[in-house]
């Protein structure tokens, strides 16, 4: 599963913070590709496979405030 975050909107700090918070639920890997930060999620916990992407995106947005 991949998520592309626009660098103009999402800060790398917020993405890292969300990755830290969610590290127990999946394996995260992120790369910077041009205007985007691409986050790859692997080995996702079965119970949350359907919602982890949306919840993670919300958490990144929330982390922007911190």
């Amino acid at each position, binding site marked *: 599963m991949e998520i592309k975050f*626009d660098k*103009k*909107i*999402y800060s790398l700090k917020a993405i890292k913070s969300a990755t830290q918070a969610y590290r127990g639920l999946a394996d995260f890997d992120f790369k910077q590709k041009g205007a985007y930060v691409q986050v790859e999620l692997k080995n996702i916990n079965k119970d949350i496979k359907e919602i982890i992407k*949306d*919840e993670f*995106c*919300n958490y990144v*947005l*929330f982390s*922007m*405030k911190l």
Partner: protein
Amino acid sequence: MEKIKTKINKNRVIFYLSAKIYPLEAIYGAAYVFLDRAYLFLNNRSGEKITVFLKGKNKLSGKQLEDLKGGFLNELLNYAFRIKLSKDSRKLRELIVGQALISAYGNEDTVQENEIGYENDPLGIAMSWEDKYGVKPKKAEKGKK
């Protein structure tokens, strides 16, 4: 009135906002308010337009998704206006705070009052009754002749 282009699919509503009209801070503000109600994702492909993806946390009908979008736009307007007001009144706020600080630090009476220690006692308050008026003579004891 220009209608905001909207797409509805897969329990989500997608619409585009002009970055020139709505500052990014206002979009963040509105987004924070909606974090508990919906899943949000923002994108900025063209540079001028920001794409907002609002997805219901539960299954929502088309009308409910439209309402969600309407609520978001109202909140966005609220934040955009707040930011504008804050910018417009910035100088006035700085002036008021500056004056308050100057009056707090610049009052000479207050400073002088603070410089006088209690040990100086210019009004002669810190003095015992005996020191001030002397010792009273004792009354003759009853029964004594």
